[in-house]
């Protein structure tokens, strides 16, 4: 580990793609996270609010989902040797997630086009699809952290993450609704956000405590001197962000504050930190304890080909994504095609 020469293209190119893959996955989790969260809240809202909740994600969900294609695409193209084993291990949760995503994506479109009698059916499928997708994503993250350990504890931990991640998505979704809605629905979103905030906090604490227990390697990376010193801001900042989120929701509810973007921004920051924690735990492995990112990498000449594309295209993508968010900024309004 000590003699790695980072100026070599065969060393830093895989690293670049590891970071890019992490960036794509994190973007996916945050962006699709809020609309999956809204999907899971859907069956708790009145019919009128349902339409408004969907309207708040309407222009974005398609592009949000594209990030998972980029994430798994980069795994596929930059780490072809890990892609097969990882997805083979995750076969069942991946299949469940895909079916969830399919159900959710199509319900979204079907529900507005069918007659009134059928609408509840597609609303229900939207909810079920979102729930299945979120839970299976949680399980997948869990499986990755335990290095696909197939014992009872390994599976128990994975199921635990499978329950915690949806809570986080609901938190993202409800703070997104605080930002994009007003009136009754916004009031409702304050309550959803507060409940899911505590569930999410509990989940992160539990997962953070359990992770080192499952992997002595991860434990050494976090709790050895001097790492523990420069890593300590991570949990500390997370706690501060939690308190800040809670306070900002309360002040918005009481009307003493107008910064409606603050809870969402804080939650996104919490997700960033949690994601950093997981990425740090896994690095430099793609499969913990079995395969490093360099062992899994594609041929350097192939990585060069994608590298030039990526550094030109990724900023362009970010540019027009921001452009689209600017077009639809402000409170959500009923969706019309014209």
């Amino acid at each position, binding site marked *: 580990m000590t003699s790695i020469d980072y100026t070599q293209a065969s060393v830093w190119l895989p690293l670049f793609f590891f970071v890019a893959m992490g960036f794509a996955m994190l973007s996916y989790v945050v962006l699709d996270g809020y609309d999956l969260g809204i999907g899971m809240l859907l069956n708790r809202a009145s019919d009128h609010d349902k339409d408004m909740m969907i309207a708040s994600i309407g*222009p*974005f969900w*398609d*592009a949000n*989902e*594209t990030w*998972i*294609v*980029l994430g*798994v*695409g*980069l*795994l*596929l*193209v930059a780490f*072809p040797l890990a*892609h*097969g*084993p*990882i*997805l*083979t291990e*995750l*076969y*069942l949760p*991946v*299949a469940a997630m*895909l*079916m969830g*995503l*399919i*159900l*959710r*994506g*199509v319900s*979204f*479109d*079907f529900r507005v*086009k*069918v007659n009134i009698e059928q609408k509840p059916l597609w609303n229900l499928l939207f909810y079920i699809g979102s729930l299945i997708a979120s839970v299976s994503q949680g399980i997948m993250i869990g499986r990755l952290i335990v290095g696909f350990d197939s014992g009872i504890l390994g599976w128990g931990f994975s199921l635990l993450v499978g329950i915690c991640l949806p809570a986080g998505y609901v938190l993202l979704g409800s703070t997104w609704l605080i930002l994009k809605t007003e009136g009754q629905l916004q009031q409702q979103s304050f309550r959803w956000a507060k409940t899911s905030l505590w569930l999410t906090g509990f989940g992160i604490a539990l997962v953070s405590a359990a992770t080192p227990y499952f992997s002595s390697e991860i434990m050494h990376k976090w709790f050895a001197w001097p790492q523990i010193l420069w890593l300590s801001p991570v949990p500390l900042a997370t706690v501060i962000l939690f308190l800040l989120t809670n306070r900002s929701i309360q002040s918005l509810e009481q009307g003493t504050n107008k910064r409606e973007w603050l809870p969402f921004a804080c939650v996104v920051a919490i997700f960033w930190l949690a994601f950093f924690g997981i990425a740090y735990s896994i690095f430099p492995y793609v499969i913990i304890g079995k395969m490093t990112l360099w062992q899994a990498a*594609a*041929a350097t*000449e*192939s990585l060069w*080909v*994608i590298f030039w*594309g*990526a550094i030109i*295209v*990724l900023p362009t*993508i970010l540019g*027009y*994504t921001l452009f*689209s968010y600017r*077009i*639809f900024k402000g409170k959500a309004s009923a*969706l*019309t*095609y*014209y």
Partner: protein
Amino acid sequence: MLDTLILSRIQFGANISFHILFPTISIALGWFLFYFKIQHNRTGLDCWKEAYQFWIKIFALTFALGVVSGITMSFQFGTNWPGYMETVGNIAGPLLAYEVLTAFFLEATFLGVMLFGAKRVSQRVHTLATFLVAFGTSLSAFWIIALNSWMQTPQGFTMIDGRAHAVDWLAIVFNPSMPYRLSHMMLASFLTVSFFLAGISAYRYLRNSRSEANLMVMKMALTAAMVLTPIQIVLGDLHGLNTLHHQPAKLAAMEGIWNGGAGVPAVIFGVPNKQTRTNDYEISIPKLASFYLTHSWDGEVKGLNDFGDKIPPVAPVFFAFRVMVGIGVLMLLFSWLGRWQMRQNRPLPKLLAKGLVLMTFSGWVAVLAGWYVTEIGRQPYLVTGVLTTAQAATTLPTGMVFSTLFAYLALYVGLLAAYIWVVFYLARQADDKENPNFQLEKKPETSWSLFRT
């Protein structure tokens, strides 16, 4: 008998068959919408706007189905075919990456602006968004077809330690079958959408739609089909010649030729028999196949028996090819007849309109048949001469693949039925809105009354 390999193939086949239906529509429908939009900008006529507003709903639905079923594809490379990326990942990877980077985000992001942004941006930006969505879907097709064609006719690479390494990217992208496959597929998309537009318009017409936009769309779609079908037939023929050159075993299976040599006959009908390695009940015209394949009555054509065991399953390829060609002939017939009948704004005869309704999804059948010809015809290889399908398959337990296969199939059948139902429902709704008297007489309808008028 049902091992993991077969199940994986059925599952991937089911997924890709389901997926391909939707891009096939969205590629050309995107360009038709762009055309409607430009015509509206140019002429200011309401009928173009009306056409845009009706068809954009169907586009949104189609696009959503394409996106979600496409996500499945990106995962299944890994779940069911781990050997694929391990062997040719260095080549397939960059092509797939460029598809995501250059096309996916473009279409998905501007789709939001196109669908819901008409009132939030200027006409010019909205037209641009419509263009970018159409452009993005076509760009997607370009990358995917480039990869698929490379798997059919690989070149520009070298094998090192059992893994393919790229040598010449231009040769990889513009491999010998790529131009034919791409243009054949793009035209197939335009033909599919032409008949889709004409079929739904004919359905509305039969239900007494008085909308000017509806008639205009029908006429435009028939015009497009009338022009494009003959071009597609010529292109298909050229594509066939390309296949004869690069994948002779596939071509022999398409034609049902077991014994090669000089002056081979054209098989009009027959049932390929794997055991006897001949066709049962064969009806054929002597020397004709040699003539149209080599342009000489005594031209040499290889037969399936020249390839030993390395031949694709003959019957599916043979029949799928005939289905595709048969639909091509029907398309030619219907478009010319329909367009001729509608000349100088004459009304379309009811019988012909009913025929067009039946042809609504004919493009889908032809595209699927064509896809089976090209994909099954490549067997036993996944990448011709480099990697067999069996080498790439997963070693997962059969039960696991079986259970997910069952779930996928149930989901797909349900969604396909829902899609077709909603398309016809939207068509009924569009006319009921502008023709309220009609609605009063309307009886509750079920999906069974889809084709009743």
